[in-house]
């Protein structure tokens, strides 16, 4: 708050007035806005998780009780009502079918074996079952199962059959889990080395001109809609690799993995390239001055120095593949099989949600299970990030960079 007469240094004196603490409104506002936006984005992530998890809560509690009603009623007023009323009345009816299911654990095993052999056809069957039940009946029936079926649903989680729409629904998550892991591993085995090596090439070997051409092109792949990649895999890659390897199911984990690798490569590439380019030139110079060749420098100095960034890039790639829905839907065959063969069809978590969420009945077990899968995806990626964080900070860095 200087008056014009105080502008020249001679007349300026340190008075309490001139040194008084000032309140800068614009700075204050900017600070608050930035922090609130930041917290908002963090809060969004948690809210999404809470929402997803809440929708799957009926699975955890067969007598979901009044507590949940009140919580759920905020978002969905209908759901709790149907729970309470429909279930108890219809319980006896559904009991007729259920004991069979509960007594069946052994038969499950045999069934699944036969199913595996007959896979394609048996999968085609499920829609038939769907059709046989009229929509209105289905709602009431399934809701009834939801009520006392929570424990039963849990017990089916660890089986291998994914038959969510049936008189006797089975929600075997193992098949989906194995499918997801299979596709993720295949995709990362392809995308990881390719992308990291491409990044290493552009940052350490390529001339400036080549780099200026290659980098935007690979990054353009990131802008490809996954539908397009999925379509490409579905039409071109699938036929091509079937001709090459001659396996039975045209769409399988391998094709899905390749397609997802295409989606993950640009992400991994961009971030690891940035990490590699951020390695100080002095390391490169020091290494070269010791008589190391270019590739020795790239592999033994630049790459280890960029490890944290490359790890982050790989993690983002895993995250992308893990949650990739459209490509999985189009290219993996969508059959929840349990096998180690990469050329068998698989069904991933994300694809399951993507394909079934629109057709499931609001509030029934299937619906809850889908949301449960959603929270599983969340938990997996959180766990992955946490483990990686600790591992990278703890072990890997020490190994490469000393204690």
């Amino acid at each position, binding site marked *: 708050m200087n008056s014009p007469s105080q502008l020249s240094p001679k007349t300026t004196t340190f008075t309490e007035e001139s040194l008084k603490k000032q309140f800068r409104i614009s700075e204050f506002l900017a600070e608050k806005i930035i922090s609130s936006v930041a917290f908002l984005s963090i809060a969004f992530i948690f809210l999404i998780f809470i929402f997803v998890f809440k929708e799957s809560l009926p699975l955890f509690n067969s007598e979901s009780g009044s507590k949940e009603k009140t919580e759920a009623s905020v978002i969905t007023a209908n759901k709790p009502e149907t729970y309470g009323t429909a279930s108890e009345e219809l319980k006896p009816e559904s009991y007729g079918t259920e004991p069979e299911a509960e007594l069946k654990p052994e038969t499950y095993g045999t069934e699944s074996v036969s199913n595996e052999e007959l896979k394609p056809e048996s999968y085609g069957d499920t829609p038939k079952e769907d059709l046989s039940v009229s929509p209105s009946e289905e709602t009431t029936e399934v809701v009834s199962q939801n009520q006392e079926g929570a424990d039963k649903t849990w017990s089916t989680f660890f089986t291998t059959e994914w038959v969510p729409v049936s008189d006797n629904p089975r929600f075997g998550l193992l098949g989906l889990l194995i499918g997801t892991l299979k596709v993720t591993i295949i995709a990362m085995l392809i995308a990881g080395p390719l992308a990291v090596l491409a990044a290493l090439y552009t940052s350490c070997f390529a001339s400036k001109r080549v780099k200026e051409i290659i980098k935007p092109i690979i990054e353009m792949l990131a802008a490809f809609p996954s539908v397009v990649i999925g379509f490409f895999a579905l039409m071109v890659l699938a036929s091509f690799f079937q001709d090459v390897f001659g396996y039975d199911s045209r769409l399988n984990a391998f094709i899905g993995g390749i397609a997802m690798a295409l989606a993950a490569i640009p992400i991994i590439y961009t971030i690891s390239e940035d990490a590699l380019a951020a390695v*100080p030139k*002095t390391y490169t*110079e020091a*290494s*070269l001055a010791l*008589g190391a060749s270019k590739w020795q420098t790239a592999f033994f100095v630049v790459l280890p120095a960029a490890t944290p960034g490359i790890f982050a890039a790989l993690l983002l790639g895993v995250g992308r593949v893990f949650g990739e829905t459209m490509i999985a839907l189009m290219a993996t065959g969508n059959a929840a099989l349990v096998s180690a063969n990469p050329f068998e069809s698989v069904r991933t978590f994300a694809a399951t949600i993507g394909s079934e969420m629109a057709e499931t009945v609001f509030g029934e077990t299937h619906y809850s299970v889908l949301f449960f899968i959603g929270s599983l995806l969340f938990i997996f990626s959180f766990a992955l990030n946490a483990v990686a964080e600790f591992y990278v900070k703890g072990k890997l860095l020490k190994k490469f960079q*000393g*204690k």
Partner: protein
Amino acid sequence: MKDIKIKVNDLSLYYGEKKALNEITMEIPANKVTALIGPSGCGKSTFLRCINRMNDLIPNVSIKGEMLVEGIDIYNKNVDVVNIRKKIGMVFQKSNPFPKSIYENIAYGPRINGIKDKTQLDEIVETSLRQAAIWDELKDRLDDSALGLSGGQQQRLCIGRTLAVSPDIILMDEPASALDPISTSKIEELIHQLKEQYTIIIVTHNMQQAARTSDQTAFFYMGNLIEMGKTNSIFTNPVQKQTEDYITGRFG
């Protein structure tokens, strides 16, 4: 002079169009310390980097003339730059240890030269650290990160790393410019010990350092080699006016 290690004939260097070194001709004796002095931007660092072809890394550099190391022109097309750098090590202005452990920093050079034997590596690490006069400080913490060392220790580690590949010639680009006087004196002492076995060429801004450490001094100005001779005579009785002005601090 007896025993010439490096002989430079009419060496010119261009950054694109700009001439950075103008027909340098000089002889650098073996097992002596040669200091290159001159104001900033005079080309002394550029010249130093010519000796182990580090300028190859910079695009648009073209070099004319001869750089004979033990009679072989290192800019000959048939000469492998990697092998040159194994013979001619370099210590940089800013200490640049790798983000690895102390042990790995030293072992890196021998390792890329194909030495895999652990006991042999241990031996090399110890001798090079001893030669770099830093063994006693570091022997108990070889597995620690080199980035945790002080600036002076890092620089001596870098010298040790250079020694580990047993070069003939060591180039030092202002090795002590970022260090405190104590670390500086340690490094100067080190240079003294090393010159019995190695040919050392050192670029420095510090006139006293040049006077203290070197046997020969070359004065660069605006890309030209103005004067070269015994350090004593350069500092006490310079032939050229420019040299005298620079040394006495009248310009530069």
